[in-house]
């Protein structure tokens, strides 16, 4: 059936900012789908307030609304645009929820918009456990039996009926609090009692536990003609019990017979048919390892993280095809662009094994609870491909960038601790398993403790065996056959280097002597059955190479940014993608290396040649040698890529842009200070210290407060502001970082940020961002306003001059990011990043200056045409951070020098308050503006009390609750206090009767568990009450008036109002 002729304009809902559980995969899917619609001649109207996305690029959608994802905002857009259809299945949970809310509010009907893709009641069935269960029972498919009970006896009776183990889930508690698993009646007595007590309505759900079963996923597509295909299936290495987003996952399944594979395939098609999904659907199934019994666990009737993974794992573009199906096409009418020959109704056959490993933020949050369960905690993931599992796994580990390149962590554990440690799933369990094998535990013993399928354990055992064999030789005596086996099974050159205490050159030279190099194989969806033209490759150390290396054309390698983590997010993928596209436009061949399956940069048509490989030195070098690239661009892939500049350059690879020695000049503290001194630019006084005593002396010399941090870290990891020696000593005792540390004077002033492009001489500054929070809050976590509203012309000129001087002095070529703080008359330079930054995509979008393209040209030697600071845009853009703290128990949401946010949103308006409001109230149910009579809880530190003086009138008309000290202070200044609360629990109680709209809590010493403030902030997270820990953010919030929502505008309208400099 051809496409629907009556659908000419479609509203696409994006997923908004990156949060845990909803990452870059929706940008990848959304961008692909929008382009698929546009090529059908459909006008695409997009709503997405995540500015760091490719999806919100001009060429992806016809109209781009970077507006809040609220019902009011969507209604205004629908009223204005009058789309024929709305496609919510590309926007993750956010998109689906919004579609449901729009339908419930009658808006879809009122404006006669057709909901495309998946029917509304299917969305609801997928989301509502009870509805889902009912439907499965209707079609005769098993779901784990469950029953809601109110007493321990009822729990015991039901458990008797369904058999142990059972899961106890208390009703209405967050994150599964108070629940657990009971293996027998005695345990259930305990757990049920505890669960009933934890539930505010004294109710628990008893459910059959399938913990330890195999967790299998199917990615299914269905069209309106009822044709169903499986894109691929996947098997979780971690059995049921760990969220699939937190599991190591392989594709295709490895331990299922064809009978089982087909049984679950049939179940999946039956379920998608019953749901009536048109498009893609993810189906999760638990399979008993010892019988053919299975249970359906979950369905996601939309594109998802798993579908992005399945797309990248097979080459089948699920989002693109889903979009085509949504407008009426059938699977057998859509050509698979990877082969250009087969149709979308062909089930991909793959001839390699894919491993996905999650990337967790525990390196940034050492206080967080590292155990993995039903709540996803990973911020990103890596994917690796090879022709055996061992190599696929080891490559994945190398891609994680967690400081290890082998299945080996430095562990200080006794055998008993180790045996204990592997029982619970954590981010390090896979390493512990390998270590347990090194110490002699058998596959059977480990299987008994972990329930990980022996197939996977045997593979890990194989890795350990190869290690042992290698270790029995010296580099001179190790036999060729063994080295070959090690490389075939994915051992890194670095692993050999360390094992034999030799240099990386020694290792690589030996391969050259032997004539060994990795072969690159094609990802083609069809296991080589048909010719495929798509240049999408992975390496393997066996067999024939398939890459036809082009010659004659200039060729540049762009390094991607790897997995999404706090401090290095989707913005760098945006930059990598634009770099590749710019190169292509310039007639240069763009080669990209990346390993993040969620991204646009790893889409099959972004680069001329895509290598799905770890971003480790050896893997990059192999591609450089294979492709014979002219040079490498390192500015776009975040710190990951910048860190490779020096080692690559030492290996003789040309690095485009700012030179390695210049990078050093701004990254090495001492060189940096010398540079600033030479340019007569003030910098914050600071001292590098090597011992506790030195640190104390330095702090005394600089005068408290001081900022302490390790050198060379991303995202302010381990950075703190300390007010006295006591705090300093306690920090030094607790920190996991080793000396040298940097001690800086902490200067509390207004922070501003500049992103500029330099061609080695001239500099273009598209604008200046002003942070809402004063210095001391990580730039990634602060709200920021563009153009800077508080700067005077002199300050702007000084900032521009500093930027120009620094850029010129280091002969910067390409992008440069400078952070400054203004304290009184002085403007200090805080740091210089010789690379793309978080704000580059935002500035590019709101100013219309194609920053990445200009940077690419500058790196290739072209001169900038316009220079200097550009005139201010006539509207305001506010960048707001978005946190995922609710998913990470134990993490303090208080703002500080260490970055904690996972994503960002943007608010656009001609009025600054409205723009602030859109960045704060960016989604339904988040941070609504205060109205007269709303309740507010306040707890201020002494310093904050001082500062609040004179600004207290803004609080009048609100119902104020406060801690005793704060209450006394407020009353003293003439404000009525409704109640005085001393315990966090009281806040909870209050909230149940009178909704507390916001909490203001300025912390004294952050991160101390057990303190009132810490507890209070945890309660805020649990109850989803906005909690302000900075007076600056709070004051901005107070400025936002309820109902003050401006007319939503297409980004192009904002941009058209001002004639920008022709770039």
């Amino acid at each position, binding site marked *: 059936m051809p496409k629907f002729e009556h659908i000419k304009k479609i509203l696409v809902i994006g997923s908004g900012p990156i949060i845990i559980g909803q990452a870059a995969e929706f940008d990848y899917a959304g961008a692909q789908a929008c382009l698929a619609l546009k090529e059908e001649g459909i006008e695409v109207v997009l709503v997405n307030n995540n500015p760091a996305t490719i999806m919100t690029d001009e060429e992806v959608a016809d109209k781009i609304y970077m507006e809040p994802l609220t019902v009011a905002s969507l209604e205004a857009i629908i009223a204005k645009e009058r789309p024929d259809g709305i496609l919510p299945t590309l926007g993750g949970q956010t998109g689906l929820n919004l579609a449901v809310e729009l339908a419930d509010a009658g808006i879809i009907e009122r404006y006669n918009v057709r909901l495309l893709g998946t029917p509304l009641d299917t969305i609801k069935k997928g989301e509502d456990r009870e509805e889902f269960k009912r439907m499965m029972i209707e079609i005769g498919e098993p779901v784990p039996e469950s029953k809601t009970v109110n007493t321990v006896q009822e729990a015991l009776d039901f458990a008797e009926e369904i058999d142990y183990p059972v899961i106890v889930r208390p009703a209405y508690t967050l994150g599964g609090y108070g629940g657990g698993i009971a293996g027998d009646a005695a345990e259930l007595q305990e757990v049920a009692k505890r669960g009933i007590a934890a539930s505010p309505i004294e109710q628990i759900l008893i459910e059959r536990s399938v913990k330890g079963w195999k967790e299998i996923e199917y990615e299914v597509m269905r069209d309106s*003609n*009822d*044709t*169903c*295909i*499986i894109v691929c299936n996947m098997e979780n290495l971690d059995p049921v019990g760990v969220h699939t987003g937190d599991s190591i996952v392989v594709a*295709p*399944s*490895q*331990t*299922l*017979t*064809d*009978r089982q*594979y*087909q049984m679950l*395939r*049939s179940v999946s*098609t039956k379920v998608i048919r019953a749901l009536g999904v048109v498009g893609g659907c993810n189906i999760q199934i638990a399979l008993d*390892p*010892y*019988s053919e019994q299975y249970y359906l666990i979950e369905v996601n009737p939309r594109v998802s993280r798993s579908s992005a993974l399945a797309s990248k794992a097979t080459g089948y573009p699920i989002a693109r095809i889903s979009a085509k199906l949504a407008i009426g096409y*059938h*699977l*057998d009418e859509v050509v698979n662009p990877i082969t250009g*020959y*087969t*149709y979308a*109704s*062909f*089930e*991909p*056959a*793959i*001839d*390699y*094994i894919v491993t996905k490993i999650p990337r967790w933020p525990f390196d940034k949050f050492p206080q967080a609870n590292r155990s993995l369960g039903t709540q996803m905690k990973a911020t990103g993931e890596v994917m690796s491909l090879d*022709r*055996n*599992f061992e190599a696929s796994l080891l490559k994945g580990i190398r891609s994680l960038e967690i400081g290890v390149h082998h299945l080996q962590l430095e562990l200080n554990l006794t055998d008993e601790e180790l045996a204990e440690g592997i029982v619970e799933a954590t981010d390090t369990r896979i390493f512990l398993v390998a270590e347990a094998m090194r110490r002699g535990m058998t596959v059977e013993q480990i299987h008994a403790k972990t329930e990980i*399928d*022996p*197939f996977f354990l*045997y593979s890990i055992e194989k890795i350990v065996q190869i290690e042992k064999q290698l270790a029995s030789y010296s580099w001179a005596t190790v036999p060729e056959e063994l080295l070959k086996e090690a490389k075939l099974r994915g051992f890194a050159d670095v692993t050999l280097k360390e094992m034999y205490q030799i240099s990386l050159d020694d290792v690589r030279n030996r391969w050259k002597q032997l004539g060994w190099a990795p*072969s690159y*194989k094609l990802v083609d969806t*069809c*296991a*080589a*059955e*048909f*010719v495929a033209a798509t240049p999408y490759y992975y390496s393997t150390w*066996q*067999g*024939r190479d*398939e890459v036809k290396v082009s010659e004659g054309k200039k060729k540049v390698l762009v390094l991607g940014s790897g997995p999404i983590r706090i401090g290095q997010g989707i913005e760098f993928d945006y930059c990598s993608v634009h770099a590749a596209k710019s190169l292509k436009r310039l007639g240069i061949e763009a080669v990209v290396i990346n390993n993040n399956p969620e991204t646009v940069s790893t889409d099959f048509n972004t680069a001329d040649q895509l290598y799905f490989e770890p971003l480790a030195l050896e893997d990059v070098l192999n591609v450089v040698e294979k492709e014979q690239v002219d040079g490498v661009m390192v500015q776009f892939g975040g710190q990951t890529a910048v860190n490779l500049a020096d080692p690559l350059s030492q290996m003789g690879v040309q690095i485009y842009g700012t030179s390695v020695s210049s990078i050093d000049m701004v990254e090495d503290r001492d060189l940096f200070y010398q540079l600033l001194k030479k340019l007569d630019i003030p910098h914050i006084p600071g001292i590098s210290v090597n011992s506790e005593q030195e640190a104390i002396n330095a702090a005394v010399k600089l005068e408290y407060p001081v900022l302490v941090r390790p050198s060379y870290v991303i995202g302010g990891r381990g950075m703190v502001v300390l007010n006295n020696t006591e705090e300093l000593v306690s920090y030094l005792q607790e920190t996991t970082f080793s000396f040298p540390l940097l001690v800086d004077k902490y200067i509390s002033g207004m922070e501003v940020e500049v992103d500029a492009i330099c061609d080695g001489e001239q500099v273009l500054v598209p604008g200046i961002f002003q942070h809402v929070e004063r210095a001391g809050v990580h730039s990634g976590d602060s709200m920021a306003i563009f153009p800077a509203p508080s700067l005077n012309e002199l300050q702007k000129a000084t900032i521009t001059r500093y930027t120009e001087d620094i850029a010129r002095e280091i002969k910067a070529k390409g992008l440069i990011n400078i952070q400054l703080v203004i304290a009184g008359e002085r403007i200090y330079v805080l740091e210089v990043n010789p690379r793309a930054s978080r704000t580059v995509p935002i500035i590019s979008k709101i100013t219309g200056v194609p920053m990445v393209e200009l940077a690419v040209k500058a790196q290739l030697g072209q001169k900038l045409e316009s220079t200097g600071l550009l005139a201010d845009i006539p509207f305001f853009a506010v960048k707001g951070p978005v946190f995922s703290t609710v998913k990470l128990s134990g993490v303090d949401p208080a703002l500080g020098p260490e970055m904690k946010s996972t994503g960002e949103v943007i608010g656009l308006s001609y009025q600054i308050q409205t723009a602030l409001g859109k960045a704060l109230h960016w989604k339904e149910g988040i941070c609504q503006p205060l109205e007269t009579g709303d309740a507010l809880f306040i707890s201020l530190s002494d310093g904050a009390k001082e500062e609040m003086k004179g600004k207290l009138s803004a609080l009048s008309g609100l119902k104020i609750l406060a801690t005793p000290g704060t209450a006394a202070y407020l009353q003293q200044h003439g404000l009525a206090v409704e109640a005085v609360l001393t315990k966090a629990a009281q806040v909870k109680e209050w909230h149940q009767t009178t909704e507390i709209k916001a909490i203001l809590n300025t912390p004294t010493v952050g991160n101390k568990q057990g303190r009132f403030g810490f507890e209070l902030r945890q309660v805020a997270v649990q109850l989803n009450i906005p909690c302000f820990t900075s007076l600056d953010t709070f004051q901005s919030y107070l400025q936002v008036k309820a109902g003050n929502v401006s007319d939503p505008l297409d980004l192009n309208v904002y941009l058209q109002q001002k004639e920008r400099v022709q770039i």
Partner: protein
Amino acid sequence: MKGYIVLSTGDIFEGELFGDQRGCSGELVFNTGMTGYQEVLTDPSYAGQIVTFTYPLIGNYGVNMLDDESIRPVCTGLVVGNLCQTPSHYQSNNTLSEIAEQYGLSGIAGVDTRAITHIIREHGLVFGKITTDPSELVPTKPATGQVAAVSTKTKTKHSGEGPHIVMFDFGYKKSILTALLDKGCAVTVVPYNTNFKEVAELNPDGIMLTNGPGDPKEMLPHLPELKKIIEAYPTFAICLGHQIVALAYGADTDRLPYGHRGSNHPVKNLKTGKVYMTSQNHGYMVKESSINTKYLEVSYINVNDKSVEGLTHRYLPISTVQFHPEAHPGPSDTDPLFTEFIQQCQAIGEKNYA
């Protein structure tokens, strides 16, 4: 032991031998299924062939008692990437290499099966030899007489309450028999060369022509007798059976460039427009232009290459499919075709008895 797979194209791949170390030779084909190696190696249609698995991890779940498609491995040899010697599955009884050894099947592991697939795709007909001596010549004569070799010599009756189906064994997969028995049929498996009179004596309600190995034209001498039989009873034909029916009505068959072997082939029902995922294993196809449309019409086509995937007789209850509705390995999307056939047998049976 170190060994080689030598190709008729001159390519040589080194690997590790398993199973019967004496080696073997035959036509080299590839199967793209990601599961189902046990079903493949016991499928009689692979008689005379060396099967390359494009999926590189083979043997992961071992070999069990349930999934054999015939009583023993039938293909000539196996080429695999990574052979798993430590399988993990609750049903597994043996490793794949144990089975290969037990039944004298030659295999080679540690080979770049993707490269071999490439070569087959480019050359079409390729022969291979698994050997310890890479200088040996590869015989390039296609095996003949495979149907006679694999077909049963005796009649075997399986009882059931439903219609009685006489199943011509050209090298049948056990799953075809199972599909019929599971749906209540009584089935008599007969040798491929059973004549009309013998069939009539069995008093069947329907005829099943099964899959089998080799060039369908080897069956030319048997066509007149077979045509008589299928015109007398409701008939369902699979794979080689489908090609035989086409030949019986004057159509021509030809070699596919490099075969359809895998579990992911989409076919379209031309009447309903519905698309199904099917399991396939055939090196020959019915030439569409040669079909006598006076008698036969095309019922299914392959979505990718548009080749003929099924036929129906315009007047008689004869239907055929090139793919494998019995699955094993592969999806069972088209399993309802058996039910349709059985209903047809019943309906006609009732008419006859009415």
